[in-house]
């Protein structure tokens, strides 16, 4: 009898304590999961709108969410998602996600193109593992703003570093590898994207 009690009590105790804490967590989760999902979506939506050169700094979180939901549509072509931004019925831009090799890990982000595929509207980086303070500076506004309204008609070499010698963008000083990686990613992705847009089923 005593032996059964010895095993019985710990098990019951464990079950009660586990149940109590699990209920506590489930309750908390219930209260917050909507907000957590919203935050994650917000991060994504902000990135897309930023790439499109929209004035997100002046918008509140609610405004960003409602703007995105009203004006941006998600579609797929060849298993790749893309986003169509339209205002008053006319398409103003397309946004594609990209992922490529950086120095320390992969770099991913968004590329926004104008409806005629003649210009790069902008880029944003959503994830990377580059060196903080060096390659990591690709997140800085000054670097990203350089990629506004760059002509992509000549698909041979879209991004070229060295504005002093005829290029259209400046690399990050001290972060040659990361800068090169970004340039290569963009120069490879943009022609690929343009090719995708010419396939049947695009924006229908």
């Amino acid at each position, binding site marked *: 009898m005593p032996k059964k009690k010895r095993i019985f009590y710990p098990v019951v105790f464990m079950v009660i304590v586990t149940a109590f804490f699990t209920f506590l967590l489930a309750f908390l989760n219930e209260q917050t999961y909507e907000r957590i999902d919203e935050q994650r979506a917000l991060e994504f939506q902000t990135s897309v709108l930023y790439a499109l050169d929209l004035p997100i700094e002046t918008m509140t979180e609610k405004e960003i969410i409602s703007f995105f939901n009203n004006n941006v549509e998600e579609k797929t072509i060849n298993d790749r998602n893309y986003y169509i931004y339209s205002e008053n019925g006319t398409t103003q831009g397309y946004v594609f996600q990209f992922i490529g090799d950086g120095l320390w890990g992969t770099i991913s982000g968004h590329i926004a193109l104008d409806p005629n595929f003649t210009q790069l509207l902008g880029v944003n980086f959503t994830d990377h593992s580059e060196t*903080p303070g060096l390659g990591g500076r690709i997140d800085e506004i000054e670097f990203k703003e350089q990629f506004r309204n760059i002509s992509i008609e000549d698909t041979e070499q879209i991004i070229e570093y060295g504005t002093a010698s005829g290029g259209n963008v400046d690399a990050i000083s001290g972060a040659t590898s990361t800068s090169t990686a970004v340039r290569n990613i963009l120069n490879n992705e943009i022609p690929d994207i343009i090719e995708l847009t010419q396939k049947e089923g695009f924006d229908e």
Partner: protein
Amino acid sequence: MSEIKKLFSLGVWKDNPVYRQILGICSALAVTNLLMNSLVMGIGLIFVTAFSSLTVSLLRNHTPKHIRMMIEVLIISTYVIIMDIFLKAYWPEMSDALGPYVGLIITNCIIMGRCEAYAQNNPPFLSFIDGATMGLGYTAVLLFIAFFRELLGFGSLFGIQVLGDSFMRWTLMVMPPGAFFMLGIVIWIARNIFPDQTEGGPVNG
């Protein structure tokens, strides 16, 4: 009151979990490249350690001996999840910056150490204080290390640029080797200021 003072001086100075007990090293190295991240991690650890110690102490007379560690792990995990949920919902950028190191608070030896060494044998209120002061000592060391790493590596403090552009940043300070060196130096300094009188591990209440 004197008991609280004693706990405070132990947790922060004399028996500091990081430089004396050599516990909680993993996160002390990982997040100290930025002062803000260190502060958040420190506050999180104070929260988890204090409440875990409190809960363990409340249950100490009812917990069967041989499942005691599993109960402790359960309690610690619960508070860590609370912290994780809170960060994800209200401060997602910080949640991303701290990454998996929030979850790793569970394995932070400081918390388990305090539960085993103090909370098991002491009343709830004092256990809470013990947990909080140990967390405070941990936070203090983290902030000290982060001060140097962020200043030398980024030229900033709490994200605000302090040193001008002409300062050549020691990027190595914000990368893993810099973390190891800084912590080694901190332990060296601490050992010289507080020489080993009683090399007997953490003090029991």
